[in-house]
């Protein structure tokens, strides 16, 4: 009864499960020894030992919002796991990986971040839809396909971007010559003459690391909360200064400039 040879995949018990490492490409095991971890709601799939899962932001956990969540606006999407034992994390059968930050910073797409150690602090990035982790510790992120690390200078496809570490925020890059002018407008509108779908990229410069996933399927976005509606805060819906091209205007991926500009008018 205790042995099932040839029962397919390896059988795990608390002794053989890794500590803070991957079980397979899609499952990550966290060991808790009276410590805490933050995880996104509903990503725990199983655990050995005794653990408690509590929403952040009430009672004795209120303190955590101050020390680790500097943006209380999305704290309700997070859960504190505490206790002792081993816990398995997974997210919709996506690839998961852990990363170590040492006195560093990393900005990541909000839907990709799964869990992190409380020694890290989580803040909203000024890029809407992204979160920034600062400090020293381990975090777990999901991606659609394995993650590739690249060094700037680099231009990346917006859908493949998972996050970036230690380098300044990216900027948009448009293949201007190809897109503008009468021919460019016709190409973009009709698809004739080759709209490659790659006329728009994110450009990274400076020193650091850029994390890419090996597919262009985005993961569902997790709400990061809306920043206060002050003037000059991107994504806040506040008073905008400057042109209508300000961030936060929803645009379809292929729709890059206004029509008049396309046709060079």
């Amino acid at each position, binding site marked *: 009864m205790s042995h*099932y040879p040839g029962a*397919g*995949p*390896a059988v795990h018990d608390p002794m053989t499960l890794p500590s803070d490492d991957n079980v397979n490409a899609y*499952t990550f095991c966290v060991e808790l020894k009276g410590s805490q971890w933050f995880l996104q709601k509903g990503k*725990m799939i199983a655990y050995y030992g005794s653990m408690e899962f509590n929403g952040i932001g009430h009672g004795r956990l209120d303190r955590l919002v101050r020390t680790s969540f500097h943006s209380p606006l999305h704290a309700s999407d997070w859960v504190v796991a505490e206790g002792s034992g081993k816990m398995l994390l*997974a997210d919709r059968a996506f690839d998961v990986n852990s990363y170590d930050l040492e006195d560093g910073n990393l900005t990541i797409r909000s839907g990709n971040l799964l869990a992190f150690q409380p020694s890290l602090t989580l803040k909203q990035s000024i890029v809407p839809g992204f979160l920034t982790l600062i400090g020293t510790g381990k975090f777990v992120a999901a991606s659609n396909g394995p993650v590739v690390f690249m060094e700037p200078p680099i231009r990346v496809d917006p859908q493949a971007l998972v996050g970036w570490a230690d380098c300044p925020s990216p900027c948009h890059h448009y293949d201007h010559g190809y897109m503008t002018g009468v021919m460019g407008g016709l190409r973009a509108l009709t698809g004739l003459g080759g709209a490659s779908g790659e006329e728009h990229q994110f450009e990274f410069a400076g020193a650091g690391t850029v994390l890419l996933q090996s597919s262009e399927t985005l993961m569902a976005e997790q709400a990061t909360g809306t920043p206060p509606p002050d003037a000059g805060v991107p994504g806040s819906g506040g008073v905008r200064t400057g042109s209508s091209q300000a961030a936060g205007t929803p645009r379809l991926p292929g729709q890059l400039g206004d029509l008049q500009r396309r046709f060079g008018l």
Partner: protein
Amino acid sequence: MFRLQDSKVLAVDMTGDAVKAKNGSMVAYDGQMAFKKMSGGGEGLRGMVTRRLTGEQMTVMEVKGHGTCWFADRASEINLVTLRGDTLYVESSNLLATDAGLRTGTTFTGLRGASQGNGLFTTTVEGHGQAAIMSDGQAVVLRVSAQYPLTVDPGAYVAHQGNLRQSFQSGVTFRTLLGEGGGEAFQIRFEGDGLVYVQPSERNTIAGDV
């Protein structure tokens, strides 16, 4: 005779014997094969009526012949389970194929089934032989023993085998009602001696957002 061609394709080598497989899951075969639909999963009239009543319908075909037959279903990951007189409990939608010699049936799961969003009943497979079950992403097999009970999220549970007692745990508090729950309001606790299969993905359950 069951082997994995790769993690998503099951190959079964047959020499005149038979397997039961999910209807329409054959992707290729060589040799001589005959496919026969089995009404009621080969459980007889009583089994057929039970399945209809419990909502654990499964349409099964019997494959018999000489050669190799390959099975797959919607690119799900496949896990092989060897049964030695014990019972495998699995959702009918996660069962791909079984040896023809294994008996299948339905059983009442109670609250656990309700929390999984799969209904109150589940499928049992018992006897001596092999079965193939499917999961969304590579499944993790966890051993439960007397000193190590296991707690599982209902949405990630796929199957279990062995001599296990399960109990339903609810972490619903007044905070859950206020929308400040821990996201893991319902859990299944396994105690005893056996194996539990979990998948790295959660089905949508009523507890998913609580």
